[in-house]
């Protein structure tokens, strides 16, 4: 698809507004848009939103043979993908100039700054080392992909845990997550890049340009720094002439911004660590705001609790005997399972009400064996749905999508990079919800 062209009046207006120090969304010259960092259920998966620009990073690891000239060092591989999902300007397949530029910038920012200790990734010198692979996917392009990608990449690296390895003489054992806890990578520092866009031949400067500002800018300066004020990489593109004072001023602004962003990253990592340790729910579904129009879950419906015991006993007396149940899921062939199909409907409703229940109650799902004793629903429309106090079965209320997540967690134990591609696809699908 072709991208919408920029009209002359838009360009003139934007430049005029920038001369008056006004930005499209009301920000100040040095303001960043809202940065939001969320983590998935897997270690090493994170989504970063900078305003409307959204980027997903996934880190995975694999044991490979090291490079010949560096037998004691691990390998770090960085890849950034621009898919047409992000913007109609991006074409799949062909590597555009922007794609190459972003990849090079990200590689320089992470690899040349030596933020990751590659010596610690060595397992058997000359034979087996860990290859850490960082895949960054741009999900929505609203300007300044570089900053979002660098934040996502370094956050994902800090979040990632690799399997523990034990060496006894000649034998190398890789422990599954159940045997030994996964260990984090050893990161020395966190380089974050900050983008400055220049207008009117370098007279005006804006930090964190949005997509329309990027289209009218003259040049771009990207400075990658860490919070210790060490510049990791610096690149100026667009062919504008920058004065020394301008570059120094930009680096001072960058150091302030990088400190703020690093604090935000650390806070996000800390929150996620706390939630995982306490056993709470984590993952993308939890971090989505529930009040938005696009929220998946319906509101919690209030349930009448008056006279509940009598009603419960009444219902239990009235229900018929449960039908035969099948322990679920039935595995028909490797890779396929069958749940509940072909059995008699144990809910006891006629068709119309079943549809209503399905519409309202996305939250509650139960396998066939949980239905007969624990949940019985009357056929009258006006009655309240009551979950009885039976102690035989534990009523597990599953949220949409968690079933899939649980499966994947079991799968991912002991498996390596081979499944990271399918993991990414599932993440993308969940996000597309």
């Amino acid at each position, binding site marked *: *698809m*072709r991208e*919408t*062209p*920029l*009209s*002359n*009046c*838009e*360009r*003139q*207006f934007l430049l*005029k*507004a920038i001369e*008056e120090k*006004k930005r*499209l*969304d*009301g920000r100040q010259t040095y303001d960043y848009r809202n940065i939001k960092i969320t983590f998935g259920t897997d270690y090493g998966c994170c989504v970063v939103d900078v305003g409307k620009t959204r980027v997903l990073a996934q880190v995975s690891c694999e044991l490979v043979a090291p490079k010949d000239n560096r037998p004691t060092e691990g390998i770090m591989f960085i890849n950034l993908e621009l898919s047409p999902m992000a913007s109609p300007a991006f074409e799949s397949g062909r590597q555009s100039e922007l794609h190459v530029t972003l990849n090079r910038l990200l590689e320089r920012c992470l690899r040349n700054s030596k933020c990751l200790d590659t010596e610690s990734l060595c397992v058997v010198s000359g034979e087996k080392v860990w290859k850490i692979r960082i895949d960054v996917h741009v999900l929505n392009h609203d300007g300044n992909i570089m900053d979002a990608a660098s934040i996502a990449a370094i956050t994902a690296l800090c979040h990632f845990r690799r399997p523990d390895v034990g060496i006894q003489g000649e034998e190398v054992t890789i422990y599954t997550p159940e045997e030994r806890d996964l260990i984090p990578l050893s990161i020395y520092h966190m380089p974050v890049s900050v983008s400055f866009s220049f207008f009117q031949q370098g007279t005006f400067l804006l930090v964190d340009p949005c997509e329309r500002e990027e289209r009218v800018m003259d040049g771009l300066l990207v400075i990658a720094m860490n919070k210790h004020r060490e510049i990791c990489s610096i690149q100026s593109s667009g062919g504008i002439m920058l004065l020394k004072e301008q570059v120094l001023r930009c680096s001072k602004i960058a150091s302030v911004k990088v400190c703020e962003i690093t604090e935000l990253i650390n806070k996000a990592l800390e929150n996620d660590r706390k939630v995982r340790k306490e056993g709470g729910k984590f993952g993308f579904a939890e971090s989505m705001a529930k009040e938005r*129009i696009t929220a998946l879950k319906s509101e919690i419906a209030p349930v009448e609790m008056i006279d509940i015991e009598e009603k419960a006993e009444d219902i239990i007396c009235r229900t018929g005997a449960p039908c035969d149940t099948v322990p679920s899921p039935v595995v028909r062939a490797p890779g396929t399972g069958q749940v509940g199909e072909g059995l008699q409907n144990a809910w006891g409703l006629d068709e119309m009400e079943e549809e209503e229940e399905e519409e309202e109650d996305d939250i509650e799902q139960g396998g066939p064996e949980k239905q007969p004793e624990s949940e019985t629903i009357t056929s009258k429309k006006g009655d309240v749905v009551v979950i009885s106090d039976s102690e035989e079965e534990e009523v597990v209320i599953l949220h949409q999508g968690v079933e899939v997540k649980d499966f994947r967690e079991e799968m991912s134990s002991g498996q390596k990079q081979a499944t990271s591609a399918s993991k990414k696809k599932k993440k993308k699908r969940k996000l597309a919800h």
Partner: protein
Amino acid sequence: MPWKNAHVFSPSTFYVDRVCYTKILPQETPGNCIMRVPLDNKADKVICGPGLRRNGDEVLVCKSGILRHKPPNLYWIDSIQKRYVPAKGESVIGIVTVKSGDVFKVDVGGSEQASLSYLAFEGATKRNRPNVQVGDLVYAQFTIANKDMEPELVCIDSCGRANGMGVFGADGLLFKVSLGLVRRLLAPQSDIVKDLEKTFPFEMVVGMNGRVWVRARTAQQTLIVANLLESCENMTTQQRQALFRRVADRVT
């Protein structure tokens, strides 16, 4: 295309203060006639608007949304959409992309670029060409817009007069909103426009392809109007009025 066997109606005449029915999903009435039309003696034909398709004797729903009715005999489905599909008779804002020979290629946000002949302007002759540059905004109407042919635009009406169409747009700001909001803005007694008028004076051009152009006295005010319109998409009436009132108080 629902327009094939129906009268062409300029959607700017739709207004939604009539009776609305329940939401209809396309699969709900497979092959069944969805409505019992109260046949007035005035009109013995039913006009199907967007979202409805005639299939012989029956009328089928092909989009999900709310069924609207404008008496005596006009029915259509109000659906939520952001992607524009060109339709004959609609007035849109286009951006000129290519100027080649006798035609301009104009981007209207659809799957194809529309063509606009240089003679389709008021007072244009072969010697007297209109002053249109690449990147200009034009407000034009579709003469041909179906799925089989390249869409065509003109900047004159059937009498040869411009009637508000043509090149415009020095100094203002162009932005994109959803098609539903555009229809609400174009409705004859639109609440949103009335509320917006109370804030400060500004000019506005609304294209049916979801593009809106505004210009106010200063760049700051233009930005405010643009942001207000983009944000009042999903607000209730009270929220919107409260927001506009706050802005009007700050400005004055």
